[in-house]
């Protein structure tokens, strides 16, 4: 078993206005509280199927998505609750979808792994590892052919890098200079297989560079770095420089899904990475810079908990899609 030692926790001044910083902090807390509740409701039998928690990785989705525009396209994975929420989806619609209720964003057809939202241009959580990458290439192609300004941000994990879909998509996007931002969330494990046991080349930026694609590596636990790097990367993609690859180095604090005894990593390693937790380290930096008081943090947390309570109430009050609608929407007409 390889040890993945954590670097020193993110530190230093936060170069943002207070309002903006607190908004991003609040989004991380909202994801955390929503997912803690989802895990609880899984235990209570309210949520079934697979449930993949993003806990520990919040800085990546929050920092990156706040660097994008509402008209941009988002393609995500099955670990996408946070992306959906930050993108602007209603927490109630997310929770109801996890419950399998008709009031969910996809009427309960997709569940946790398949959050879709046309309004915020979220083209799905995709549960085929690497499955979203070719779609992102096509969305980028459509954008380019229609002279639109939007870019497509495609999120995927380090596990997807071993798939053929990754290599075909990187090649096509670079060959055709498409406006796609490839956002690789490297949490060091594809399910239970560590990156050293899956990749002959563990420096993922080298792979991107082999497709003549600029590649940036960023500390995915440091929301300031995530946001600034993504902003810069998105701008380069938006002006037509072609695709760009960003590797967010992050870590999953919880199990892969709810069926995972975590035999593949040491508890000490997880604890070590928790010292780099994105919420408490960012809060500490804000406090040190006088941009956050304990009262303000508690207010943010209380607001998140209220939102979660309302989302759970919404899901609980939701209805089941009638069985007569089973075949509905198989085709458009």
């Amino acid at each position, binding site marked *: 078993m390889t040890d993945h030692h954590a670097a020193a926790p993110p530190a230093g001044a936060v170069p943002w206005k207070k309002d903006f910083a607190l908004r991003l902090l609040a989004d991380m807390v909202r994801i955390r509280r929503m997912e803690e509740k989802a895990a609880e409701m899984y235990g209570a039998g309210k949520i079934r199927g697979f449930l993949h928690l993003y806990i520990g990785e919040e800085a990546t989705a929050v920092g990156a998505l706040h660097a994008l525009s509402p008209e941009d396209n988002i393609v995500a994975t099955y670990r996408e609750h946070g992306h959906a929420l930050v993108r602007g989806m209603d927490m109630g619609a997310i929770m109801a979808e996890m419950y399998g209720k008709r009031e969910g964003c*996809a009427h309960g057809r997709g569940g946790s792994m398949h959050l879709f939202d046309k309004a915020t241009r979220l083209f799905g959580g995709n549960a085929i590892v690497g499955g979203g990458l070719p779609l992102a290439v096509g969305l980028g*192609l*459509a954008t380019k*052919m229609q002279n639109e300004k939007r870019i497509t941000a495609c999120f995927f994990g380090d596990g997807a890098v071993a798939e053929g879909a990754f290599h075909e998509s990187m*090649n096509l996007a670079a060959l055709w200079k498409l406006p796609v931002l490839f956002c690789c969330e490297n949490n060091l494990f594809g399910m239970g297989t560590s990156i050293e046991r899956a990749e002959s080349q563990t420096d993922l930026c080298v792979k991107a560079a082999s497709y003549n694609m600029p590649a940036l590596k960023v500390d995915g636990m440091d929301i300031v770095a995530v946001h600034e790097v993504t902003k810069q990367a998105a701008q380069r993609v938006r002006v037509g420089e072609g695709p760009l690859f960003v590797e967010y180095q992050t870590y999953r604090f919880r199990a892969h899904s709810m069926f995972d005894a975590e035999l593949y990593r040491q508890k000490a390693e997880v604890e070590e990475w928790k010292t780099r937790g994105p919420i408490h380290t960012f809060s500490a930096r804000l406090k040190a810079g006088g941009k956050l008081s304990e009262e303000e943090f508690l207010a943010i947390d209380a607001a998140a908990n209220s939102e979660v309570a309302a989302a759970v109430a919404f899901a609980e009050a939701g209805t089941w899609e009638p069985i007569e609608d089973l075949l509905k929407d198989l085709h458009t007409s």
Partner: protein
Amino acid sequence: MSRKLNYREAMREAMHEALTNDPRVFLMGEDVGMYGGTYAFSKGFLDEFGPERIRDTPLSELGFVGAGIGAALGGMRPIVEVMTVNFSLLALDQIVNSAATFRHMSGGQFSVPLVIRMTTGAGRQLAAQHSHSLEGWYAHIPGIKVLAPATIEDARGMLAPALADPDPVVIFEHAGLFNMEGELPDDWSVDISSAKVRRAGKDVAIITHGGSLPKALAAAEQLAAAGIDAEVLDLRVLRPLDTATIMASVAKCRRAVVVDEGWRTGSLAAEVMARIMENAFYELDAPVARVCSEEVPIPYARHMEEAALPQAEKIVAAVKGFFA
């Protein structure tokens, strides 16, 4: 005034028309541009429509079929060409897991208006990695429509309604038909929902599609000489199957043989037979028969390839079995 043209020209005209009429339509695939198309379906298109809309791809079936799905989600109307059905297996994940699922799985939010065209079938001594007939596999999948144009009229007419369809449509073009010539009537517009009787008869219904249609029609001529009046029904649309038209032929003829170039086990023929059992069992004078490919990888040597495939003689023999 009808006019004479071959299958290749008919399909080429259909694509030309689509590209001319709708700026959202573009053609993407291996060697569709500079090479002019593997089977010359798109010869001259690159010069006329330019490299943005006639898009040569690398050998990345998974990548470019998935990109077609993404482009469709993004507002375009792509025609994605896959060189043969065997190569489409590299793209099957995107077709089955994305194109076919998105509309339903997103709760009706996202449609995928995509057309995928691919060559299918044997008969050209291309051996076991270029000759299979896997359209029955595709016909198994809810969320896509599956077409098999087998006439000049359908080659000319099926693409436009396929492109107008808001959901994914997969078109199978049998390689044995490409040089087939025929008359295109003035009104060649066709639907993509019904099966069609290609030869009316009363003694036996030969139910087939794609490259087996000419073989079925040839068999019907031989049977006519033997005093058996065969009806030939072209399924045309493999998903969803036009059950009503199948049952009408079966009820009229009381005997049916299903001809399918797919392998027998788990074949589309098996599905058609099951539907006949479910819907027309008491109309039958004999058990339904079928003529399928032998269950081997299609071999290269001509005599062995011919032996592996449905042929007019095998169809005639199967029908004569009803009257023995």
